[in-house]
């Protein structure tokens, strides 16, 4: 086990767990979080969360994750996440942070696969006439000068 990165065995465990957390969906055309490119991004992104992620993997393994069927694996992950423990929350954050920047995932969500800068995005003006109902109302704020002069 390396001190600054996951071991090969830990990455294998992570692949199984990530694929359970966010599985591929052929109908939607999205890979799972166990996709090789996404998994590599997850591993590369762990950074400061390494101790917590490592602990999460150990806690999941300790609950016989490897011997469970798919339904029970999903139930186990959801149960553990509901406890809001720092390790499982960190694992979830790292998995989702990498998954939802993958080109294939973004394109399936009808998002452009790019950084926001420098092109930015367009924000429509919206319906300013809605404010007509508010314009011209009497002031809501208290004028301290008037109240304290009484």
């Amino acid at each position: 086990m390396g001190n600054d990165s996951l071991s090969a065995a830990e990455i294998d465990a992570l692949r199984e767990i990530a694929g359970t957390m966010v599985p591929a969906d052929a109908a939607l055309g999205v890979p799972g979080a166990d996709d090789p490119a996404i998994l590599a991004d997850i591993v590369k992104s762990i950074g400061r969360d390494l101790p917590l992620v490592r602990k999460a993997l150990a806690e999941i393994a300790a609950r016989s994750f490897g011997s469970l069927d798919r339904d029970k694996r999903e139930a186990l992950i959801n149960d553990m996440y509901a406890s809001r423990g720092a390790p499982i929350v960190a694992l979830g954050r790292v998995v989702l942070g990498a998954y939802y920047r993958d080109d294939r995932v973004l394109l399936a969500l009808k998002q452009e696969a790019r950084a926001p800068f420098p092109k930015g995005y367009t924000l429509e003006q919206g319906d300013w006439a809605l404010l007509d109902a508010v314009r011209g109302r009497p002031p809501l704020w208290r004028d301290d000068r008037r109240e304290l002069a009484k």
Partner: protein
Amino acid sequence: MSGNERVDVLIIGSGASGAAVAWSLAETKMRILCLEQGDWMKSTDFPTNGRDWEARRYGDFDIFPNRRGRDTDYPVNDDNSPMKVANFNGVGGGTVIYTAHWPRMHPSDFKVKSLDGVADDWPIDYWALERFYEENDRMMGVSGLPGDPGVPPRNPPMPPIPLGKTGSHYGRAMNRLGWHWWPSDTTIATTPYEGRAQCINLGHCTPGCAQGAKASTDITYWPLAIRAGVELRTRCRVREITTDEHGMAAGAIYYDADGKEHFQPAEVVIVACNGVGTPRLLLNSASGRFPNGLANSSGLVGRNLMLHPWPMISGYVEETLDGGRAPITNLWSKQFYETDTSRGFVRGYTLQFNRGMGPANQAITSAAAGQLPWGRDHHRVYREMFEHRVGIGVACDDLPEEHNRVTLDPGLKDSHGIPAPKIDYAISDNTRRMMEHGIARAEEILTAAGAKRLFCSRTALNSPGHLLGTARMGSDPERSVVNEWGRCHDVKNLFIVDGSVFVTGGGVNPTSTIQAVALYIADQMKQRLANLFD
């Protein structure tokens, strides 16, 4: 320890208030030096330049220093607080990572004792600050829409951010309820402004603006102050303010980027380190003459900490909205801002309406809220949420209480060995009643907007971490730390200009008022230069 050449004015901290006071005092032609413990920020370093822009909000651009952990940060022990401390240590300070939401405090916020019989009045009022609010709005560059019946008149120099689909959706719901709403003022430029480019909707503005459309003081006040002769020295972490045999501030001892210790002598010292950094520095400046910390004869340095409890209520509508492709700040409502004792509490709150989130943050926050399952159902639920999110923050007035305080942690230290701050904070009963009222109203609004899957985060997520009240302003030296123009009662050449001097915090984001107060204090100093120490 090396000694530096004496300056007329030493400012400690280059954030919202330090920058404003430096710019204002520059016209005096005094020799002014600012020491900043962080670095200059580069727009190319901000997250929206890269594909990992959302993940970096939980890393090197987290608003919480303990999580961010840059070597320019100092740790904060906030274990005994339900709310976390937000700050940023670099040129521009907290304005680098704020949302740029730009409400002012209301006139009533300055007179809560006289009007509502609680806490204390400020020794100054809204009207004394009004022209400094205006000046600051021009300097920072504010976008907004005049004519709001919810707040006193103001004149934003740029038009408001578009309502977008999300704002229109909220507007229809608020009109059905008959409640006040208005597009928020913001320091995000909607047109080219004083050398700044206009907003191009890069997403959530908190982790810095690569476009430079968001006003942070490194790109607003500082270029002008430096051009006018102010020196800004970065990577200089101040350990303590020293005093002379007369009990006057003599200068400050700081560590440079190489860890070398310096003494910087000064005629006047101005502290601008925020509501946690300032009491930390004053308490770390204890001496034989000031055994309880500098300027602390009242015992109030560090006390009356206000953090602005800020519940966040969210839900999901069927209509596809703006998502995260625009600034998150959108609208505000002042319907419940002023005191109505029939509600069961005094003072009130602003409702702050937000846009959605980017793809990753939508997933991360909804998973953390327990709303997004793991496994085969993940994708179906996610698609009902992404770009369908509506969320309202309840910005609660947080009245001062002496037991809410900043002290020095007995063990925790920063990388230079300087004792770190410790936060003890509890939410008062009045504020809890206010929070529950606001949560219920927000749920009414979201229901009227057709939202389902309502979820309330009371304090854990999206806590703003505003830092106020720990060196309060007042005319009585036994009940305050600084006088009505920012000078310490105990040390007549020591001034405090940041949110520490707030007597109350209002129910709004404080940066606009922090800077108006800093400009007001600078103006008072300029008017009194001939007898500043009398």
